[in-house]
């Protein structure tokens, strides 16, 4: 097994790239994919720590995170499609009905 720190660093880099994507992109689906990237970075941390500590709880957590991600994908993509039907666009800057 590699050193625990190397996995943590990879995970931190992936998480930061996902953060930059969420903050800079306008396409709602791409923002969605960046959120998935961040969730996966956290999953990697969980599995690495689980292996390092010799405790399987972290991997069960990854299981639950995957479930939440699947639910999030289903509802989020339905929201995006509903928004597209109303506005003909999936730019997050067009989500401005409640803007004062």
């Amino acid at each position, binding site marked *: 097994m590699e050193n625990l720190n190397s996995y943590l660093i*990879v995970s931190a880099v992936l998480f930061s790239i996902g953060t930059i994507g969420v903050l800079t*992109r306008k396409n709602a689906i791409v923002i969605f994919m960046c959120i998935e990237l961040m969730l996966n970075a956290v999953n990697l941390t969980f599995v690495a720590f689980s292996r390092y500590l010799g405790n399987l709880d972290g*991997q069960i957590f990854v299981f639950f995170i995957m*479930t939440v991600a699947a639910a999030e994908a289903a509802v989020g993509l339905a929201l995006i499609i509903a928004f597209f039907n109303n506005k003909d666009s999936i730019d997050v800057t067009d989500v401005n009905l409640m803007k004062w």
Partner: protein
Amino acid sequence: METIFFLIITLVAIISAILVVTCKNPINSALSLIMTFFCLATYYVMLDAPFMAAVQVMVYAGAIMVLMVFTIMLLNIRVDASKKHSHKLIIGSIMGFFTLLDLGYVIVKSRAALPTGPFSGDMIKQLGHTELIGREIFTSFLLPFEITSILLLTAIVGAVILAKKKI
């Protein structure tokens, strides 16, 4: 040998993660994201968690990404290069960089606790990872497991309601 393999996988994972953020076409982003998921599955195998790797490939690279690609193709959005980034590009990049600094600081400054649990690599190989995960999930984590099913039910109902013609 394993270090070199780890470095190659890391390179591929980070490059494809950067491509997810920078590609103009959402389809290309989706394919890069699938590549990243496969790299993460490889990490899970290297961490003695083959069941997690299988689930990663099936659920993430299979189900969720198929849903995403399906949505992208269903909506058929024109790629508008001039409107790709918001004007918050610099601020967003700085925030992301500070996130990285923060995480790096935590990693460098902190010390992980010593290994305490009973599961070593040999034991996982001997008993089988799937069996160990199954035992944990149906004994210690039974209640969260059941609550997960309620979450999935809620998601199904929500998706069906949102997909109606008139909201």
